[in-house]
């Protein structure tokens, strides 16, 4: 069953219900989706899931200009009526000092995204694909005994933004995802695990072989492990790990967090250096590598590429309509939909500043004169990152590279301060890699504290 929403019908119903309730200004975000997914366990289907979901969030402005909001999964007339009533009641508690308005860009042209819509393959086809992938992964090494976390899913979805001034945004999307997380154990040794993820616009387009290869290579590479001595090391972050870290500290670039006083940045930070002078960071939800990109944000503002750091200097913040108004700039397309609108990043692009040295040249972790810690993935970011303080202390999986040989690290944490880290970047290694969270090369950072068990 394909997910569908009828924007014009929804608009008509809302106009009628709002008019009857005496509500003149409103907007809404609606979404529906159809999902199917499978998990397997040693050749057998473990769980097969399907879901039909729908949801709507309605904002209304009362006669005092204050905003209230309500969300519901009930898209019937009765559900919409109740949501309008709830939003109107909530508007009595709207914040007069920070009232959202319609985005001035809610009717501006949208970028054209190349997002082919694929028909779902069906759950039994997904099951066959995943069984085969699991079997191949299990066959890669005798120590790989299970693939305890795995899943193959496909989704058809649609989202809408409407407002009472005539804005109408609509986007349909099909996506598919595959993850394989293997567990390996050799006699007398601790179990080790690693995995890989792939995204595509349809299940047939997924790079299944690449996912198997990556999961196998990463898992096998951790079988031979040793403890690491506690100390300060030059660390090489994988693209995934570095993007995770930047994402966890994205309040640095978030105008909402700045206004709320919980960012390390402040209103005067624009134009100030935040990182080494050869470091660029852009937010670009429109990058073709961003599978499932949104053409517009929760307020209907078009998504666009935005320079956050250029030459290490802070250039722009991420904005909603309200924060942009407070800063006297245009919304950037990074808003949610709420009484207090959240702001968040889309998809990062990280690399050397064009025309700069790009930091130290010719970096190669296998030819480094000193031992290097190569960080493959970070864990527990929700607990180990103190974004408002700038500090982090995070468990990681990775390797100690010395003399051209990489050996997996048994168990360790890496700790530091994000501002110090951004100013301790030595340079980049290799080509930028597309990941689910962004585009990034390997990033070298010196002087990080690593705690091990040796």
């Amino acid at each position, binding site marked *: 069953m394909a997910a569908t929403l009828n924007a014009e019908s929804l608009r008509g119903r809302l106009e009628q219900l709002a008019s009857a309730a005496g509500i003149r200004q409103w907007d809404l975000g609606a979404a529906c989706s159809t999902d199917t997914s499978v998990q397997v366990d040693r050749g057998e289907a473990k769980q097969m899931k399907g879901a039909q979901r729908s949801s709507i969030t309605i904002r209304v402005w009362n006669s005092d200009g204050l905003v*209230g909001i*309500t969300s519901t999964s009930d*898209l019937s007339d009765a*559900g919409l009526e109740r949501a309008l009533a709830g939003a109107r009641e909530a508007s009595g508690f709207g914040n007069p000092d920070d009232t959202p308005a319609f985005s001035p860009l809610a009717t501006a042209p949208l970028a054209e995204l190349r997002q082919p819509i694929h028909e779902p393959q069906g759950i039994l086809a997904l099951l066959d694909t995943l069984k085969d992938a699991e079997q191949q992964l299990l066959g890669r090494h005798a120590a790989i005994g299970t693939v305890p976390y795995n899943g193959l899913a496909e989704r058809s979805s649609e989202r809408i933004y409407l407002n009472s001034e005539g804005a109408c945004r609509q986007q349909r999307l099909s996506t598919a995802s595959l993850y394989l*997380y293997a567990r390996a154990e050799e006699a007398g040794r601790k179990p080790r695990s690693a995995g890989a993820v792939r995204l595509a616009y349809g299940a047939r387009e997924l790079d299944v072989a690449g996912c198997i290869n990556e999961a196998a290579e990463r898992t096998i590479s951790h079988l031979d492990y040793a403890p690491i001595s*506690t100390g300060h090391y030059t660390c090489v972050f994988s693209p995934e790990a570095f993007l995770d870290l930047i994402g966890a500290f994205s309040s640095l670039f978030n105008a909402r967090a700045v206004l709320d006083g919980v960012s390390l940045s402040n209103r005067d930070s624009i134009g100030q250096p935040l990182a080494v002078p050869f470091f660029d960071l852009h937010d670009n939800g429109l990058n073709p590598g961003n599978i499932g990109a949104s053409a517009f944000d929760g307020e209907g503002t078009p998504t666009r590429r935005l320079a956050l750091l250029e030459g290490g200097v802070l250039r722009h913040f991420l904005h909603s309509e309200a924060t942009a108004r407070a800063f006297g700039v245009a919304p950037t397309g990074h808003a949610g939909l709420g009484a207090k609108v959240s702001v968040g990043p889309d998809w990062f692009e990280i690399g050397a500043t064009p025309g700069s040295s790009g930091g130290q040249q010719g970096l190669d972790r296998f030819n480094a004169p000193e031992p290097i810690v190569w960080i493959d993935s970070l*864990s527990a970011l929700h607990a180990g990152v103190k974004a408002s303080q700038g500090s982090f*202390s995070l468990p990681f999986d990775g390797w100690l590279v010395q003399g051209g040989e990489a050996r997996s690290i048994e168990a*360790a944490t890496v700790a530091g301060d994000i501002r110090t880290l951004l100013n301790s970047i030595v340079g980049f290694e290799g080509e930028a890699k597309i990941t689910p969270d962004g585009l990034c090369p390997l990033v070298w950072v010196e002087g990080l504290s690593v705690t091990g068990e040796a």
Partner: protein
Amino acid sequence: MVASFDSSWQPRLESLLARGLAAGADLVEVFLERTDHLGVLAEQDTITSVSPAFGMGAGLRVFRGERDGFVSTNDLSPSGLEQALDQALGMLGLQRGTAVLNGFDGLAQLRDFAASKDSWLARCPELREATDRLLEGTAQLAMHGSHLQAWRGSYARDWQEVLVAASDGTFAHDIRLHQSVGLNVLAADGEHRAGVGRRHGSSGRPDDLRQWDAEASAREVCESSGAMLYADYVEAGQLPVVLANRFGGVIFHEACGHLLETTQVERGTTPFADKVGEAIAHEAVTAIDEGLSDGAFGSLCMDDEGMEAQRTVLIENGILKRFISDRAGELRTGHARTGSGRRQSHTFAAASRMRNTYIAAGPHTPEQLIASVDRGLYCKSMGGGSVGPTGQFNFAVEEGYLIENGQLTKPVKGATLIGEAKEVMPRISMCANDLELAAGFCGSVSGSIFVTVGQPHIKVDSITVGGR
């Protein structure tokens, strides 16, 4: 919107279940849900967000052998539920009408755990009262805090009505009410910063926000932020650690509790799968998971599979006694159900999950534990944590102090504790006599659920402390 799950649902559900069985399913389960949520945020002296939400939906699960198919939908109409059933059957290669009905005696008499709870939602604070109470909390923060750069209070009220029907006759109805209120501050003085938060939560207590002691909560948060503002970063290494009671219990939750869920046995990701009857922890450790503590965040009258809650002794004097099990866990691992089949909402299939999970009180005083350490770390307040597929766990220390010569000395920050359950559980060598529980949220295979962690003060003889 469905008005309520009354007895009129019985014939519809029986028809649905019978059709599933007739198609060749071994068992069919239907989970119906209505929800009503309210979230309020206060920042400084202003209400900045009021977010009501309501919803409804169904989750249908079909078992055949050890396999199952699960479908969720927002459409509770007869055709919507039939369509969901067809989809779930199709996942297992079954079709309605292709087999003969293999015996269904109808649903048992409804076990109505909701009978006395109809008034709960109406007895909760109205929006005005809730916002006033929250602003009282932020005013208390402003009064007791120093160097506060930002301070906020948040309130969440989650009401849920559920009806569970299964082809084994299970037919049960319940209403749940969870409320939580949290206070957070960010203190800053030059380059020194400290962010501290605490959350109080309850279940089944409509008056809880009214009875919440805003001043005591604010004092606790402000004292902690004041202590941590100028704290140095902890020095990394292998150290003995004393963990405070209440939220210190996150160590057992992450390090061991998850590994005693049958989902982990099914996956082969627990080192304790074949250890029932064997010592897996120090003899000082007795650990319990239960859904019965009055008003606790993880308490429930019945689980999301319609089974009445229980008290389950997991570890007794270091010996592994039981696993936490749900319907699928019993089917696939043989461990009997413990009333622990839980899910965030109808969009998730139930899984074996913790409820109120804690280490039992021991014979010592907290002071005796601290006095037994020459040089170590005292973890007064914990942040969140997680456990990986190899049993390696981690969690953050929000408020820590050095222990030197048996005494608490200076505050330290930035510590992360990591380890493996098999290695750490035998090192919990002392338990104090001051068991207390704390509310929390646990995210796992069946979504984010309300739980309680808890413990008395405990001593871990050695653990890896990540720092700078």
